[in-house]
Structure formats: structure tokens, C-alpha cells
């Protein structure tokens, strides 16, 4: 697992894709930070993070698109599938490498709340605990999205297709919430409960919901499991 993690991480930082994603995400964060926290003078950075979650839908599949599709295209898939390493470890190693890239994305945004901490006007108090909670949730949501992107990459040998597929699945998952609100009734409530994004609302509002975090983790584990099954399945084709 470490071998694959290490290789994948090195490969991220040898290609321009990761740099572009990290840089562009930084620019977007800056814009939202300026608009919400500076121009409109909100002290809640969680609002900014909440807005950024929409963009994760587009950024994350770009990070994960290469994980499996590149191997398929290059013929290195054979290497991974005939190495004395179980498939779940291959999936975990690759996934964790993408998590590191996402962590770098999160880390670069921390500069914003730090600026806020030192520039609170009129004797206000910076809501540190709420901001940290918001970050935890943001990271967890990202973990779930990364898992979806990883799955999309295991489906095809084309990186662009993997990225588009990832975006489509994530948008579909987001729409579950809208559908749930329209349907109403029990089914509607179930759909809202299942939605990743509806659960994020609490965190934007500043509430820390542990059950939602557990849901994100469970969702991640399930999707990674499906990815493993999908790769194993190909032996039988």
C-alpha cells in the first residue's frame, strides 16, 4: 500500500494537473473570502467554506481522474493486478494520495481565517471552534467526493471521461436533495437524509453534527469498497 501511495503522490507532483487545481482553488477561495468575509464583513468563515463545497464537485474529479484510468491506458494495470498486493490496498494507496492533494487544497485556504483572527473589529470574537468544525466537515465531505472520483476513474481508461463521469455522479448526488424536497413524504425525507450536501447545511450554519461526519465516512468506505469490487470484477470479464 505504501508503495502505491508513494508512487501516486510523486506522480501528482510531477504533473501540472495537481498544481493547477491547487492554484485555481486558492484563487476561488480568495474571491469568496473577499466577497463574504471582507466585503460583506461576515465573521463566519464557514459560510465561505459552504460556498466552496459547490466547486469541490468540479475540482475533485480532476484530482482523482488519473488514479486508475491512467494505469489502464498505459498497461501498468497488469503490474498492479499481478503484484502480490491485494486490490483493496491498491485502491487505498491511490485514494490516500489523492487525499493528500486535497489536504494541500484545504491547507492553503487556512490563511483566510488566520487573517480574520487578527483583524476582528469592534471587540468581536472570532468563532474559532466553529471554524475548526467547519473545516473538519469540509474535509470529510471532500473525502466522500474523492471516493466517488476514485470510483469513476476505475470505470474507464480515459482520464477526461473519468473526470466528467465523476462530476456527473457528484451532481446527481447533489440533486438527491432537491428531489427529496420536491417529493416530500417519507421517501423525500430518506433522500434528504442520504444526500451529502444537505447534511453540509448544518456545518455552514455553524452546528457540528457528528452523525453527518459518520455518514460521510461510511459513504466513503462504501464507495471505495465498490471501487475494489469493480476492479476485481474485471478479472472475470
Amino acid at each position, binding site marked *: 500500500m505504501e508503495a502505491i501511495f508513494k508512487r501516486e503522490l510523486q506522480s501528482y507532483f510531477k504533473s501540472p494537473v495537481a498544481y493547477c487545481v491547487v492554484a485555481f482553488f486558492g484563487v476561488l477561495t480568495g474571491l469568496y473570502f473577499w466577497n463574504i468575509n471582507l466585503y460583506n464583513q461576515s465573521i463566519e468563515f464557514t459560510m465561505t467554506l459552504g460556498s466552496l463545497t459547490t466547486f469541490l464537485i468540479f475540482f475533485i474529479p480532476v484530482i482523482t481522474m488519473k488514479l486508475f484510468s491512467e494505469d489502464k491506458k498505459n*498497461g501498468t494495470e497488469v*503490474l498492479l493486478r499481478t*503484484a*502480490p498486493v491485494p486490490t483493496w490496498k491498491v485502491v487505498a494507496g491511490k485514494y490516500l494520495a489523492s487525499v493528500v492533494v486535497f489536504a494541500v487544497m484545504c491547507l492553503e485556504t487556512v490563511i483566510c481565517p488566520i487573517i480574520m483572527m487578527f483583524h476582528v473589529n469592534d471587540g468581536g470574537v472570532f468563532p474559532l471552534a466553529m471554524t475548526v468544525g467547519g473545516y473538519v466537515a469540509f474535509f470529510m465531505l471532500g473525502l466522500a467526493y474523492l471516493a466517488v472520483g476514485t470510483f469513476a476513474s476505475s470505470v474507464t481508461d480515459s482520464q477526461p471521461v473519468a473526470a466528467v463521469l465523476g462530476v456527473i455522479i457528484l451532481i446527481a448526488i447533489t440533486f438527491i436533495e432537491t428531489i427529496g424536497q420536491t417529493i416530500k413524504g417519507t421517501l423525500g425525507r430518506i433522500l434528504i437524509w442520504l444526500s451529502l450536501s444537505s447534511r453540509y447545511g448544518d456545518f455552514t450554519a455553524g452546528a457540528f453534527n457528528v452523525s453527518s461526519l459518520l455518514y460521510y465516512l461510511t459513504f466513503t468506505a462504501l464507495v471505495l469498497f465498490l471501487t475494489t469490487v469493480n476492479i476485481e470484477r474485471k478479472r472475470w470479464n
Partner: protein
Amino acid sequence: MIEIRNLVKTYGKVTALDDVSFDVGKGEILGFLGPNGAGKSTAMNIITGYLAPTSGSVIVDGIDVADKPLEVRKMIGYLPEQPPLYGDMTVNEYLNFICDLKSVSQKKRKNMLDDITYIVKIGDVRKRLVRNLSKGYRQRVGFAQALVGDPPILILDEPTVGLDPKQVIEFRRIINGLGRNHTIILSTHILQEVSAVCSDVVIINNGKVAGAGSISDFTSSQNGEKRFVVTFDAKREEAEALLKAVPQVKSFSFSRIEHNAVVFRVIADSKAEANKAVFFAAAEKKIPILEMKAIEKSLEEEFVSIISKDATGGEV
């Protein structure tokens, strides 16, 4: 060492392998021969665990691949048709990654990589990016990858395709060297390759085993006949009279005159030692024999005759 039992592999309606069974003994270099699309790569992919068979089993050193795939994968070094390389790594980085994958300890690693890079002659490109290497070097790096961890079994899928003649000879030399303490399966559609390096052959055609045995089984005489060419330093009539007088000679034909010597093709019963008889008869008559050489039926002739028996088409 490797027992392959009743392998069947279907892709939808297409049957790639149809009840394939054969054994590979320890230390054998098995040539896996067949026309393109015969099912060679599929069989190799199943042995290495890349694909699962539709039915049938592969047992490596007593372990069933289906039961303990990871155990079996540890014993096998695999060079697929397209070498599985990462272009964005240097040769050193790549081979170290393979060492990580195969859990080769740091202690053993340096010596092992030095040995391997020496054997496959890539010592001078170790610091170069894989993507910048030529086809021949890539193939060698792929081969090096299969050797990492010193697996007792090597499976090489068309290892010499795309190499120049000098590299091909070099590759065969390496394989011959490795054959001393490895069990090797080597697939190819080049017949000379099999004659050059293999001890045994399995011929596969349309997903079925069309023939199997040791190289000598295939190349030695057929129909109980033995053929050889004799060159006499004599007149044609003298030589003809001599051959007629030898009872073991079934038939002969004049071939050509070479530097005042005559060359005859002789066909004899394989059990009768006609070559010796001809030698003594010539000695008695004081006719010098300049050359005497057995003609072996080539593997090529044999191969073509075997695969054309199943006249179901397919590119040869």
C-alpha cells in the same frame, strides 16, 4: 511446477481458451507457440492471476491460484506483451517502486538491482526517465521488473517483439542463462526463438492445445524416416553405384555438384544406421566423404502442419 488443468475462458460468446491443459516442469523453458490470436496471452494472463478462468484451474508449486492468489503472485515474475512502465519515473525510481510492491527489503535491494541491471544491461540508463528510453531499453526495463524479487517462475509474453536482431540474440542469451535456475514460459510466434531457447513446446491454436512435447520430439524424424546429405569427392556415377550397394539406404537423389564434389540426399529407415553403412562402404572403395549431415525436419514445418490440421482459418 505449473499444472494447468482444463482451462476455459470465454469473453461473452467468444471462446478464447477451450479446455487447455499442460504441465511445466521445474527448470523447463517452455515455448508457448501459436499464431496471433490463438489464446497465448489469455493463458498467460490466467496463470499470472491477471484474469480468472471461466473454469479450470492453475496450480503453481502445489498452490491453486484461485485459493491463494497472492502466494502464487509472489512466485511469478511477469513481463506482459506491453511492458508495464511508468513514463514519469526514472529507471531507478521505477525499479525501487517494484521492489516496494514485491516487498524486497532495503538490505537486499541494492545488490539485487545491481545484479538485475547488469543482467539485462540497463546500467547506463538507470537515471533516465522511462518515457525517454528506446523500445529495446523499455523492453529490458520491463524484463528487469519481472526479475525483481527473484521469482522462481518467469512468464514472458512475446519478449522479443520489436527488438532489433542484435537485441533479440542478446535477449535469448539472457533467457538461456536464466533457464538454469528458473522455470520459464515464453510465448512467441517466432519459431526460431523456440528452437533457440526452449526445452519444451506447447502449440496452441484456436484456444486449444494442438501439440506438446520436447523440442526433439518435434524436430526429429517423422514416419520412421531419417534423412541426410552426403558429399562425396567422386564422380557422380561412382557415388550412385556406392549408394545403390548399401542395403540400408531406402532411396537417394542427386542434389548438386560442389567444387568437383557431388552432393546426394539420402533417405533411410530411422532404425537402420544407414549413415554408418554409407561411411564404411565409401571407405572400402576409397571414396572420401567430405561431409555428412542429418536433415532434421524443422519445427517450422511441424508447426505449420499442426496448425493447418485445424483448418478454421485464423491468421498465421
